[in-house]
């Protein structure tokens, strides 16, 4: 057999910190042959990004290779000089990134950025830089290759004028500029909408076949890995715990961590597990309505003066005790709707009825009083907590603002709340940066339920979390609801999650509700094309479907 394209042998890497070196990668062994498609699965902090960046020679600052080596096409690239990298980086090995917005320079046009890459490659290979028009032609050709409509016009546009999916295509075009032998994809679909995810994966897949690319793709999304990769490695705490054919690993995981990871993936095909719980509590004859919205509308005025309707005449009714799902892609208006329901954003028109009272006209003190009954949990727990306040301060804050409780009572309540969210009481002295993402989200939930609200609005509460943590938080949310008699409005773009926990669901598109009703009914027999398309895209990236396809 010929030499493998990429060969990582017993590779270990430390990163120096104030508390001494952290072993980020431990004895990694990986081999990628030409034409291979390898997926690396792992959660945040598993070291997968550090690993692939080391392959590109752009590893983190202050890192040190303690043992092993990386060989690319027979050449040891472990400790190459910057100059030697010039002929490899971006040319023979190139990379596509996670968040297409932040990985494009906002001040340069798409065309400038791509032709710059082309020029850099020509300079590095000693060909001499081609003329501006020749580079433009090549750029347009690349943009066309990644399926962009109207690439000529796109050349002069800036990143902020493009949608997320388009930006990712631009980044892919940049990565292909040097006709790379090895393409590294770092979570290429994570920051995209479900339908766009499916399109981008299709694109990568077709490019792999057309251009005969060798691909290493890392993702925490097992569905995405299964779509692209024939071989797969599972990373956990800096080690590769399992590798082999994707179908084998997904179908028959050996390592305990892989099993746990796979079990945590919400499956869009799975029947919800709530049946038993629902049967246990006898249903009341007539559900009591807790929250209603009538013709709720929000119109923003753009700076050029054009009105933009974010939420268009939405009517909904949430019964007491249920989990009410709101699903839709980014830009569908679901977050605006959620914030309006709490009057965090003023509706342009329409009514919000909470527990029989119209709160759309409330102001001042009555509105403030009303707020204690309805609370909000944000998407990103990392930014929802003030880094300079202890966890105890954060959870106690609503109590200090809304009640006259004494300091000691507040202290006791904070401890009780920590018990409820299953965190150690001592956590009240800690600061947010000392907690993991899942722990922080629990703190946010504790803060939201501090005042015994009746309604919680959860805006993508698990989207910023790892899959296994997501599974825990979802389960925990269901427990808390039962214990505290809560009602949830649950916003998500993840259909599998919605199916798992929501009773009723509305599907939103461009500010309007396109379909609503019983969650199971929507999933089993969607009435609208849009819903069907959404579920179809969700299925494409779903684990079960892909195991079937690859196996």
């Amino acid at each position, binding site marked *: 057999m010929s030499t493998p394209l990429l060969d990582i042998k017993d590779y270990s890497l430390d990163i120096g910190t104030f508390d001494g070196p952290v072993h980020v990668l431990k004895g990694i062994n990986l081999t990628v042959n030409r034409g291979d498609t390898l997926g690396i699965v792992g959660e945040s902090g598993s070291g997968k990004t550090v690993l692939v960046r080391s392959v*590109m020679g*752009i590893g983190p600052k202050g890192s040190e290779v303690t043992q092993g080596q990386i060989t690319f096409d027979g050449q040891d690239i472990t400790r190459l000089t*910057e100059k030697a990298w*010039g002929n490899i*980086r*971006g*040319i023979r090995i*190139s*990379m596509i*990134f996670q*968040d297409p917005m*932040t*990985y*494009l*320079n*906002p*001040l*340069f*046009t798409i065309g400038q950025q791509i032709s*710059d*890459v082309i020029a*850099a*490659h020509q*300079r*590095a290979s000693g060909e001499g830089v081609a003329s501006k028009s020749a580079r433009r032609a090549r750029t347009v050709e690349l943009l066309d290759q990644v399926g962009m409509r109207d690439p000529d016009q796109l050349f002069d546009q*800036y990143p*902020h004028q493009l949608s997320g999916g388009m930006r990712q295509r631009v*980044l892919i075009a*940049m*990565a292909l*500029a*040097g006709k790379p032998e090895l393409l590294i994809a770092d979570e290429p679909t994570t920051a995209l909408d479900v339908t766009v995810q499916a399109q981008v994966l299709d694109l990568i897949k077709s490019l792999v076949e057309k251009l005969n690319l060798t691909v290493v793709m890392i993702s925490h999304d097992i569905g995405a890995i299964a779509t692209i990769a024939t071989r797969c490695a599972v990373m956990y705490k800096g080690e590769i715990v399992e590798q082999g054919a994707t179908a084998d690993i997904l179908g028959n995981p050996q390592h305990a961590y892989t099993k746990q990871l796979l079990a945590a993936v919400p499956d869009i095909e799975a029947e919800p597990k709530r049946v038993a719980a629902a049967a246990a509590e006898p249903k009341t004859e007539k559900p009591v309505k807790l929250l209603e919205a009538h013709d709720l509308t929000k119109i923003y005025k753009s*700076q*050029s003066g054009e009105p933009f309707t974010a939420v268009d005449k939405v009517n909904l009714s949430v019964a007491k005790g249920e989990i009410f799902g709101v699903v839709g892609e980014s830009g569908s208006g679901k977050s605006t709707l959620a914030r309006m329901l709490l009057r965090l954003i003023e509706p342009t028109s329409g009514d919000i009825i909470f527990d029989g009272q119209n709160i759309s006209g409330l102001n001042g003190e009555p509105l403030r009083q009303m707020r204690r009954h309805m609370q909000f949990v944000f998407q990103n727990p990392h930014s929802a907590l003030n880094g300079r306040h202890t966890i105890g301060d954060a959870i106690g804050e609503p109590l200090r603002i809304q009640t006259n409780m004494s300091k000691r009572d507040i202290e006791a309540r904070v401890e009780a709340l920590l018990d409820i969210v299953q965190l150690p009481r001592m956590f009240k002295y800690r600061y947010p940066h000392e907690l993991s993402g899942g722990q922080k989200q629990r703190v946010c939930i504790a803060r939201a339920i501090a005042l015994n609200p009746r309604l919680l609005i959860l805006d993508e509460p698990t989207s910023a979390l790892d899959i296994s943590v997501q599974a825990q938080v979802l389960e925990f949310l269901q427990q808390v609801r039962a214990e505290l008699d809560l009602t949830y409005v649950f916003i998500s773009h993840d259909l599998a999650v919605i199916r798992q926990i929501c009773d009723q669901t509305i599907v939103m598109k461009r500010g309007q509700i396109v379909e609503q009703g019983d969650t199971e009914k929507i999933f089993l027999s969607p009435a609208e094309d849009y819903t069907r398309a959404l579920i179809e895209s969700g299925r494409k990236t779903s684990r079960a479907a892909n195991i079937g396809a690859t196996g």
Partner: protein
Amino acid sequence: MLTFTLRKLLTVAGTMLGIAVLTFVITNIAPGDPARLVAGPNATEDMVATIRTEYGLDRPMIEQFAIYMKDLVTGDFGTSIVSTRPVLDELLRYAPATIELVLVAMLLGIFVGVPLGMLSAVYKDGPIDHFTRILSISGVAIPAFWFGILMQLYFSVDLGWLPVSGRLPLVTRPPEFITGSLLIDSLLAGNFKTFNTALSYIILPAIVLSFPCLASILRVNRAEMIEVLQSDYIVAARAHGISSRRIVICYALKNALLPTLAMIGLRFGWMLGSTVLVETVFDWPGIGLYAVSSALASDFKPVIGVTLLIGFLFIITNTLVDLAYAWIDPRLRRA
């Protein structure tokens, strides 16, 4: 971009009107009777009354304001009591010296501050970074008049390299007035000897005036560069094989320049104000010195004139900064 520019110019007009109104109100609130001031200490009541009528000070406030505004629009800034010459003439005579000094100081601040900031960001915690840290802290901490005197003592008195004060020696004939800037005018006239002399006179005051400005530009640019260099698109540019030099100079600097530009605009206004000190120390015949001597002589029309002029220059610079912002950042152009 065109509508953006037009809209900005409208704002300039509005702000200028605001400054004019404010100056009028302040002069009318300020204690003292202008008519009596003009008439001098030995004047009789009759003389004061005549002057009051002559200057229109006995008319209703609103009418006075209308006259004041009409005068301003037609470029009439009143007459200086001390020199009995129109204030506008004097401003036009003194302003070029100040503008020349401020511009040279600004250029120093930008062309030393921005590259130093960039270098200390790229070589963070290295020797350059430590050196610039000392430089920027002293720049902000040392008072201009003291620093000015130190520089005079060392470079002019001890070493004798540069003249102590003034703008040109009395024996040198200034070049023909074209722009009012001695440096530019002497170059235009092809007179390099005068250019060199003028340059030797402007170096010290320009350094003293630019030092705090240089320090803050350096700090802001360093901090911004450090942040930008860690951003995702820089990682992506490296991964795409773009050379480090191009990444720093082109990709990162353009992004880091935006906040630096804002600082430059603010510092420009600050420098116009500081010229009062620096011009006094270096005996620089600009509007700062003119304002100080007029204020000491209770000659208020020149003070108002200088206030309006500095306000005008400040607004113009900041409008230019805004336009530069939009020119650099495409996301701002729609606003």
